């Protein structure tokens, strides 16, 4: 046993990296299909969107970059699918500078292709990127065209039919921000607190603990916490919309539900490593103490 403890304490960390790599890659090659349970914050978000009426304006902000796309992409795309099925009018923006707009353009094109009967400018619009996050949100409370005079391709808002019926963000029934970093917080503290527009956030898992405080204080209508939250949301969508159940079962694209297999496997592996590491540490400390006493 002493040999095992010594080996554990002097193990080259690269062996652990390799073990993690194999543990994450295996469920991608051989999917397991482990079940996902839903949490209250995700159900609250889903129900809030379900209760909106066709024609209501919703705001989707891509406030993340490629570095967190595996977590945020699935939630933003699932949100768009639910909105399009419910015939909500979606206004898309991107306030994250490094790649937010590129991801927004790609996701909007991908989801719009799934709903060929929807028209750009009537059912959804992509206003693009704007620098300054908090200052942009403050301006949205006064007038949208002040912050976004054109859509992302340069068409003035006055020539976009669905933007004729909306002046400022008070008329928007919901803001959904898929966010990394501080921009998600700005939507809560700038737009919700000062203008009153309801907000749902889909943060990265790293940011999620901070947002539970806002959720508990009633400043958020719901929250999707990282990849797990996105997988929960996909599950609720599959249950509510049979056409999406078929889509999520057959798609070859990346979904949060697929990613959760790897999450479960690697979390089990990490737990085992934590237990083994602590066992080895306690054993070595006890042995040292005995040596000192003896």
């Amino acid at each position: 046993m002493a040999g095992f403890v010594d080996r554990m304490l002097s193990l080259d960390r690269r062996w652990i990296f390799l073990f993690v790599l194999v543990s994450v890659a295996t469920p991608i090659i051989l999917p397991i299909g482990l079940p996902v349970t839903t949490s209250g914050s995700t159900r609250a978000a889903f129900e809030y969107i379900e209760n909106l009426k066709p024609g209501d304006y919703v705001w989707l902000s891509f406030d993340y970059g490629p570095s967190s796309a595996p977590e945020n992409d699935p939630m933003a795309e699932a949100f768009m699918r639910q909105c399009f099925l419910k015939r909500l009018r979606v206004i898309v923006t991107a306030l994250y500078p490094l790649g937010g707009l590129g991801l927004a353009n790609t996701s909007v094109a991908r989801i719009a292709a799934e709903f060929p009967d929807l028209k750009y400018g009537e059912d959804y619009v992509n206003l693009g990127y704007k620098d300054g996050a908090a200052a942009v949100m403050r301006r949205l409370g006064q007038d949208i065209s002040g912050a976004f005079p054109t859509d992302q391709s340069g068409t003035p808002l006055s020539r976009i039919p669905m933007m004729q019926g909306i002046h400022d963000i008070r008329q928007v029934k919901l803001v959904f921000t898929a966010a990394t970093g501080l921009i998600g917080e700005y939507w809560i503290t700038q737009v919700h607190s000062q203008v009153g527009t309801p907000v749902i956030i889909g943060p990265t898992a790293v940011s999620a603990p901070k947002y539970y405080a806002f959720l508990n204080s009633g400043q958020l209508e719901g929250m999707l916490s990282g990849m797990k939250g996105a997988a929960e949301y996909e599950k609720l969508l599959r249950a509510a919309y049979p056409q999406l159940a078929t889509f999520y079962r057959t798609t070859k694209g990346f979904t949060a539900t697929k990613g959760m297999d790897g999450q479960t496997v690697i979390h089990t592996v990490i737990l085992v490593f934590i237990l083994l590491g602590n066992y080895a540490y306690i054993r070595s400390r006890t042995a040292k103490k005995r040596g000192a006493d003896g």
Partner: protein
Amino acid sequence: MSLDPLGVWIAAFLTLACLSFLYKDNPFFRFAESLFAGISLGYYIGIVLNQTLMPNLIEPMRTDFALNWDLVVPGLLGFMLYMRFVPKVGWVSRYALAIYVTYYIGLDFTRRIHGEVLPLMGRTMLPLTRLDAHTLVSATFIVGVFSVLVYFFFSKEQGPVTRRVSRVGIWFLMISFGAAFGFTVMGRVALLIGRLNFLILSWIYPTLGIS
């Protein structure tokens, strides 16, 4: 949406170059790191120019200067920031920077007080008049907030009572750090899943002809 094969190979090479750092530092990793830094800066300049400066500043002044003449002021302030690169008139940039900083202090002050401090303080002031499950949660909440505040009170040396209370605060902090660590692991693993998903399903499988 199908991916461009050349783009997939470049992305796969750069992904492997970044992951190679886990084995040890090497020229491939340094190349990928430098490339990322350079491209990020170039992308940022391009996107701000095309998506912010053109539609919000240059185009409105070009199409109707009489209506948008006031945009000269923010445009000039932005230009003044770059004066710091001319040593003789570098002091000019400080005025623009002062206005910029002042604006964001004002914006952030109201945002923090109105959107963060007051609502979160309000959530902490909970009724303890009824005795049910909610009361227990509320009591735990209040004990947590109070003991953590005592732990972070550094203006007076801790006595026998405050030391015990701050000890309770440490427990609350440790539990919150544990939760944050768990979420961080989940977040980082999600990124690895995303990259491996790309490498296996978008690069290796098509290269080997596996559908």
